[in-house]
Structure formats: structure tokens, C-alpha cells
């Protein structure tokens, strides 16, 4: 007999229930500000000053407004798709290149001291400057096209990926490296069997940082001579006080970021099955 009580079900899905409730409360608060609910509700208490609680939708939009606008842009006019395609393409190329270049570079620098002496000054210098400061230079070099935007995304993303991969190798247990060389493992085999598995969680967390930074890259880079793209769409909507549209753009970025971060988590879980779960009952 299945005798799970409601209390049990609540406990098992605690994370989901609390998270969803908090988010729902946030949406209601937001809607309330833009519709003046709170102003009306608290007027007897606060008097005149309650009016500050009604905020014009032009400034903050509202959940229903955003939902309606999304429906229009996705399903009716379909105008958002070219923006998503444009920005998505830049993101995939820029972030993909950052991973392909950053991971091997970082691993090599972590493993070979001499190579890290070469890479370190460049990496530290790049990390210490706001990378968007390079934008005007890139525009000068390669104009304002697709590749300029890919380049800025690449630059933003490659730094945390490389730095994390480098640090990851330094955390590998030296005793395991000793086991590998005692058994005569080749360098490649050592990378595959010792370095990669212990470095993986650090590399993935570097990628998670990189996802967030490439989103910055999209929004900033599209300010330069771009006609389509989520970043420029947000910007133009903002300039014409089309707040609903701004929020739709922001929402697209948030969702894309969440999807990618969750994807990386899934990869981590897939390869980290051996790790005892924290808080697991022993």
C-alpha cells in the first residue's frame, strides 16, 4: 500500500516547493507594483505616501505584460527568432572556441611549468583589465561584423575557462600521478585517467562562469553596428521605452543561461557518479 502522506511529499520536494513559492510571490509583488495593488491596499495605513508603491508600467513592466509581449514576439509576429538565431550563433561559436582553446591551454599550463611561465603574464594581464575595453580595438581591426562579436565573447569566456583548467591540474593528487608513472603510463594515458577526472569539476565550474560572461559579451558587443541580436533588440526597445520588450529580451538571456548551466551540471553528474553525495546518509 502506498501510504505517502502529504507531509512526506512536501519534504521530498522541499527544494522545488520553496523555490517555486518564492518565485510566485515575487511575480505577484511585481504585478502588484505595476497595477497599483499595493498602493490601494496600503493607502489607509500610509496615506499619501502609499502612492509611491504604484509604479508606472513603463518603468517596470509587469509579468502579464511580459507574458503577452512574449506571446506576440514568439508566436504571432515571430520577430524574436532572427534575434535569437543571430545571438545564438555568435554565442555558440565564441563560447565553443573558448572551450576548445582554453581547456587544453589551461591543462598544458597546469602540467608543464615552463609553459605556465609563458602563459601566466598574459592571463593575469587579461584578467586584470575589463575585457570590453578591447572592443574599440577589435572594431578597428576587423570591423563591426559577426566575427568582432564572436571575438569579444571568446575573450570574455576564455579567461575563466583557462584559469580554472590551470588551477584544476594543480589540485591533482600527486600520489595518483606517482601511481601513473610507476606503472609506466604514457602522458596521454595519465591525462585521460588521472588529470581529466580530477580536473573535470573545476573545468566545468570555469565553463559556468564563462556562460555568464559570454552573455555580457553578447549584450555589449551588439551595441556596435548590429541590426539583429538579442542584445541590440533590448537596447533599441529600451531607447523607445518599450519596457515589456526589454524584459522579453532579458528573459531569453536568463533562460538560455539557465539551460546551459543546467546542461553543464548534468554533464558533471554524469561523470561524477563515484563521488559520495554531500549529506548522504552513510
Amino acid at each position, binding site marked *: 500500500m502506498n501510504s505517502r502522506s502529504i507531509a512526506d511529499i512536501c519534504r521530498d520536494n522541499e527544494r522545488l516547493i520553496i523555490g517555486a513559492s518564492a518565485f510566485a510571490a515575487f511575480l505577484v509583488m511585481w504585478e502588484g507594483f505595476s497595477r497599483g495593488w499595493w498602493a490601494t491596499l496600503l493607502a489607509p495605513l500610509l496615506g499619501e505616501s502609499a502612492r509611491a508603491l504604484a509604479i508606472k508600467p513603463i518603468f517596470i513592466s509587469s509579468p502579464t505584460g511580459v507574458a503577452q509581449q512574449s506571446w506576440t514576439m514568439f508566436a504571432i509576429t515571430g520577430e524574436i527568432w532572427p534575434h535569437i538565431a543571430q545571438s545564438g550563433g555568435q554565442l555558440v561559436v565564441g563560447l565553443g572556441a573558448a572551450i576548445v582553446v582554453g581547456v587544453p591551454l589551461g591543462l598544458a599550463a597546469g602540467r608543464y611549468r615552463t609553459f605556465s611561465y609563458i602563459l601566466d603574464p598574459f592571463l593575469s594581464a587579461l584578467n586584470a583589465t575589463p575585457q570590453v575595453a578591447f572592443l574599440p580595438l577589435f572594431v578597428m581591426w576587423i570591423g563591426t561584423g559577426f566575427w568582432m562579436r564572436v571575438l569579444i565573447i571568446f575573450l570574455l569566456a576564455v579567461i575563466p575557462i583557462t584559469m580554472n583548467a590551470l588551477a584544476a591540474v594543480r589540485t591533482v*593528487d600527486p*600520489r*595518483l600521478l*606517482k*601511481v*601513473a*608513472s*610507476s*606503472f*609506466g*603510463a*604514457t602522458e596521454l*594515458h595519465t591525462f585521460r*585517467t*588521472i588529470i581529466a*577526472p*580530477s580536473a573535470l569539476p573545476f573545468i566545468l565550474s570555469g565553463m559556468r562562469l564563462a556562460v555568464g560572461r559570454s552573455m555580457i559579451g553578447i549584450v555589449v558587443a551588439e551595441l556596435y553596428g548590429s541590426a539583429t541580436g538579442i542584445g541590440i533588440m533590448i537596447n533599441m526597445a529600451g531607447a523607445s521605452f518599450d519596457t515589456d520588450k526589454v524584459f522579453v529580451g532579458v528573459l531569453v538571456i536568463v533562460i538560455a543561461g539557465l539551460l546551459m548551466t543546467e546542461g553543464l551540471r548534468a554533464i558533471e553528474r554524469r561523470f*561524477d557518479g*563515484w*563521488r*559520495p553525495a554531500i549529506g548522504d546518509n552513510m
Partner: protein
Amino acid sequence: MTPKLVAKDVCLEYRQPRTGDRLLALDRISLSVNEGEFVSIVGPSGCGKTTFLSVVDGLLPATSGEIIVDGLRVNKPGPDRAVVFQDASLLPWRTVLRNVCYGLECIGVRAAEARERAMKFVQMVGLDGFENSYPYELSGGMQQRVNLARALVMDPKILLMDEPFAALDAQTREYMQEELLRIWEQANKTVLFITHQIDEAIFLSDRVIVFSARPGRVREHVTVDIERPRSLKLKRDPRFHALEDRIWSLIHDDALVQARS
């Protein structure tokens, strides 16, 4: 008889990378081990036993002097030698069976065959039923037995064992000692065995080499002239006690000298 393994004036100096300080861990170690001989090394903690074993394996280059195996100078690890490390040093992301397969994989044995061979040794160290467990699911003693199986499965000519039974309970330890002697006798292996237990050293060995406190030097060779096969009853034999006393006082004197200086 030709010596299987020779150490000639091996010195090893560790350098602290940050301070540049030097620490002499091994001071002109010279010894030789015959083919098929079982030799133990005992000595105070920190006297350089693990360091010496790493030099013999080829993991650490000697600062001066040389290690010769079968007439050839050792400069890197080879399949003729396998180490049972002092810390179990298992790959945490691999199951017991796949840990035992590790060395076979490194020398290119096909996966199916490696698993089959590894399984025999997993059973030998008494871990059947745990072959698919991860190291964190095992006790310290069980992890140590995986470490042992990982070296034995390589079927090396020379076994280099660094306190392999230190983490085991008395019963398992005695069982493993007998298993080790059985493998050693059957497969004609040469064993270099490090231990802190004087009785273990005597029970297992043809010869016990006593190291002095740091820097490690060979202080004395004590031959164990007791016939084989040996049974556990031997541990109550007067000859056994005499050897035990002798080795104990060698180490003890040295510890006293060290403490006074």
C-alpha cells in the same frame, strides 16, 4: 648467485623549492638483493625508507649513485618492478576492479583479459563482492588490499612493498603474510619489503636491513637463518626472539643517539 638488484652509493637530497633548503634523505646506500630473495628494510620513521623505494622504482632520480637491476641501470619505472604504496593511492573515480586493472591497462593488456586477471587478485585479497565498489565505500584496510592486488596483478619480477600491511587487523595481516609468502615461493619473486613491525620483517625475510635515522644509511644486515616454510608458531621460537631483540636494540640505540643530538 647473481644479484638481481644492486644499489651503489645511492644519495638523495630533497630540495625545498621555496626556501632552496636541502635535506639529505639517503646517504650512500649500498646493498644488493639476490634473485628470489626476500629482504626487509626497517628503520625509524622518516629515515628514508619510502624515498629509497621510490629511487629503486625509478620514480625519483638519485642525486648520486645508481640502482642496477639485472645489470642495467634504472632510470625510470619499468614493468619488471611494481610498488605497493604506503598510502593506498587508489583512483577514487574507479571501482575496485578497475583500480586493479590500472597497471595492466598501462602496458596495453586488452580490457577483457585485464578484468579476468584482475578478478583473480581481487579474490585473493579477499574482496570478492566488492569489485564494483568505489574506494570511499571501503575501509582503510580494504583499500590497502586493493593497492596490493594492483601491484601483484602485474606479476613483476621485483615487488617493492611499502608497509603494505600496516593498516590491517592482526588476523588479516597474518593471512596476507602467508599469501605473500606463497606467491613469492611459487613465482620466484624478489621482494623488497618495508615495515615497522620487527616480527613481521623476521617472519617474512631472508635478510633484514636496518636503516639508521635520517639521513638514511645502511646500519646493519641481519640474516634470518630460519628454515622455510615457516609457520606462525615460529613467533614463539627462541631464535626468533633473539633476532627480534637484536634488531630492536639496533633501532633503539639509533633513536637514542638521534634524540640526544
